[in-house]
């Protein structure tokens, strides 16, 4: 019987091995913490930089709606802009000279005229009276009031001049400046002016595009999955189709964009920038992402269900349509929703088919020119104006919230209807 002795050398070696163990574990914890911190930093930085975009500063003006600016017969084309500027100038009787007057007018956003017009159109009785109405300030003034532009900077590094600053301080002192929730970001279409740019058009475009994607990819995907999983004989042809579908899931999305450009637009002459083409391209991309989970859902249905149905005389198609498909539906829907969520975040293939044009109007159908939420974010990100950075972040926050909502729905479906056999 040998005696086990704790020599110094052994002790040292053991300590070394334990140190290695701790190091290894620390690396693991470090990796997870790094990933977590990155996620937090990414979300946090985007959320913080989006905050300015959700509010907007207004200046309350006393506006006299007179015949001088307003043609009562033709309200839509009256000089609303002149009216807004005149009303602002009324606050500053000391401002004389063309240049100063124009500089004063620049405090207001181009959209200020729309504020006045919309108010008068909604309240026709205000014609000929004097109203108090908050109107939109321009983006630079707005950023200054929010503190994004530092007012302590020397004048030539600051976008807002000293003169503007003095005017603004006077307005603040008169308590005419107010800060409100920026509804325009949800109700307006795209615009060159950051304070007027909104996501409405992009949201509607995304909806149209995803509708086309869903209508094209869901039936095709489910039918293909039924065929491959339940009907097809296991031969060379089905093997090729299977390998193909798996490969298709790994093809870079931009290649699908090239396909859409070459086939749908150039060969079939479909319109550029249309949700129809975008939806079809995304459908081709989503197809394998629907087929794969659908097949998994079918495979999870125990054979005893099929055998029981066959035992009472159902044909193979009846077994599938009456029993397997309804039982697999929760899994299929979850897979489809996740696939659509991925498609909703896709940008690159849509750039190829021109869905990043500057489009102010809200698309009315699937062939109208449109853009989608991620493409809108990409376009805003390319804008040099400072206020667009906040707008872009706000767009991202909206996109991420939508995706979170959709994925949460998918998880709910799975939890609610999941069956363990």
């Amino acid at each position, binding site marked *: 019987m040998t005696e086990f002795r704790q020599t110094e050398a052994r002790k040292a070696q053991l300590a070394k091995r334990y140190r*290695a*163990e701790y*190091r*290894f*574990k620390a*690396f*693991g914890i*470090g*990796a*997870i913490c790094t*990933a977590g911190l*990155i*996620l937090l930093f990414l979300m946090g*930085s*985007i959320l913080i930089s989006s905050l300015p975009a959700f509010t907007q500063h207004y200046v309350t003006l006393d506006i006299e709606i007179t015949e001088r600016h307003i043609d009562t017969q033709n309200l839509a084309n009256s000089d609303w802009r002149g009216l807004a500027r005149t009303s602002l100038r009324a606050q500053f009787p000391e401002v004389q000279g063309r240049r100063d007057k124009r500089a004063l007018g620049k405090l207001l956003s181009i959209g200020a005229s729309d504020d006045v017009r919309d108010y008068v159109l909604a309240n026709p009785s205000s014609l000929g009276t004097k109203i108090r109405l908050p109107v939109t300030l321009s983006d630079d003034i707005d950023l200054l009031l929010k503190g994004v532009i530092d007012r302590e900077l020397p004048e030539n590094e600051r976008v807002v001049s000293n003169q503007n600053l003095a005017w603004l301080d006077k307005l603040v002192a008169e308590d005419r400046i107010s800060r409100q929730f920026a509804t325009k970001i949800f109700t307006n279409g795209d615009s060159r002016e950051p304070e007027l740019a909104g996501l409405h058009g992009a949201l509607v475009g995304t909806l149209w595009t995803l509708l086309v994607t869903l209508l094209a990819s869901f*039936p095709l*995907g489910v*039918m*293909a999955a*039924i*065929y*491959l999983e339940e009907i*097809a004989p296991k031969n060379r042809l089905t093997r*090729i*189709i299977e390998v*193909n579908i798996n*490969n298709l899931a*790994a*093809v*870079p*999305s*931009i*290649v*699908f964009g*090239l*396909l859409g*450009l*070459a*086939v749908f637009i150039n*060969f*079939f*002459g479909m319109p550029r920038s249309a949700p129809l083409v975008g939806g079809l391209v995304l459908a081709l991309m989503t*197809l394998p992402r629907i087929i794969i989970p659908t097949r998994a859902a079918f495979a999870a249905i125990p054979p005893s269900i099929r055998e029981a149905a066959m035992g009472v005389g159902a*044909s*193979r*198609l009846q077994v599938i349509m009456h029993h397997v498909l309804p039982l697999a539906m929760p899994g299929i829907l979850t897979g489809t929703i996740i696939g659509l*969520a991925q498609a909703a*975040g*896709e*940008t*690159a293939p849509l*750039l*190829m088919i021109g869905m*990043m044009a500057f489009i102010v109007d809200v698309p009315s159908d699937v062939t109208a020119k449109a853009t989608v939420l*991620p*493409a809108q974010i*990409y376009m805003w*990100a390319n804008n040099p104006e400072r206020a667009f950075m906040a707008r*872009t972040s706000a767009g991202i926050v909206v996109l991420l919230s939508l*995706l979170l909502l959709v994925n949460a729905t998918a998880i709910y479906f799975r939890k609610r209807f999941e069956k363990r056999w």
Partner: protein
Amino acid sequence: MSASSLFLCLVGLGLFSFFFGRRRIHRLATGASQKQHSRDVYHASFLVICATFVPIVLLVIWTGISPLVIDALLESFLKARANTASLGELSVMIAKTKAYYAGSISAAFIDDTIAEATNYYADLVAHSLQARSFAVLLLAIAGVGLGVRKIALRFTARHSVERVAQLIMLVASAIAVLTTVGIVLSLIFETIRFFATVSVTEFLFGLHWSPQIAIREDQAGGSGSFGAIPLFAGTLMITFIAMIVAVPIGLMSAIYLSEYASPRLRGIAKPGIEMLAGIPTVVYGFFAALVVAPFLRDGGADIGLTLSSESALAAGLVMGIMIIPFISSLSDDVINAVPQTLRDGAAALGATHSETIKQVVLPAALPGIVSAILLAISRAIGETMIVVMAAGVAANLTANPFESVTTVTVQIVMLLVGDQEFDSAKTLAAFALGLVLFFITLALNILALYVVNKYREQYD
């Protein structure tokens, strides 16, 4: 009739024939001595298929093909009238004709030839639409007529319906193959046209990329050059940086989550990491371009490094972040697939936990991990939005990650975004790049499959 109203007609006819067929078989069955072969609903569906299947196929094919035929006819008409051989002039005339037909240009901009051609074109379009409506409706009504005659008690309607249903399903699963064929064909077709102007060797091995095409013959610096090596080098560099970030973090977190973590930590951390995978790439692009790149540039300036504001480093780092969940979830799966008996055996020999992992679990999971990394590389190479927003546009052959480089995907986007005529070498180059991209990612995927299949040990 427009395609959608024709389609609605067919839907209406289909509904009608469903109820009509059901009534008919019901009538036949009441009081009959024979037993009915198929249930009523199959007879009804049979009639629906008779009424709509062939007409819908015809409608789709006609709608797809007729613009091509009409265009070809218009082209030959214009060629005969205008006596011009130049393809460019001809395509301008065709575009003008169509624009005038659509009413988007006024009569002031067109001459007699175009006016004549427009009449001709309008005629063709009108005739094609008429003929289509006629053929589709005729086929549909004939289908109903023929179908009704077949409905009988002993008619095997279920078999017919199921055969058609199976056929439709086969076609649906063939769409996936058709897509691949479509991708390969459209890419190859355009690439061949590209290689008619630029040689293959210049494209694959040329060191200079500046895809400007002369608008006039004598323009200075107008000859575009299409050497794609700087693009490949840039793509590789950014991918490499991404992998340096993603592989250690992804792999270590997968190891920790599957080997050490308590179920509770796993329940929080795993979905957390997978959230990174659900973030759209345009968000990463924004993060790279407007947060990480300025941060690196300012940080570099503080320690005396000059970083380009579109440095490969920023794009690579952020792409690495995007890839982390990809590597971690795939590795997690393969590590979990290593049987517990192996770990127990190592523990019985006195190995510490980390020794077990390093010397037993990881070697056993290695083929799966390698294949995960290969898939991640393929993903990084094909990634577009991050590099479009954060990497450079100018082709720059350099090994310095602080400088700006461009990638294959960036160039595809740059060449194709905006107005373009479809025949220039510039546009076609994008398809050649797309083909290269397609084959590289395909090869990496196949290689990943091969590694798993060849080196995986079967433990059970």
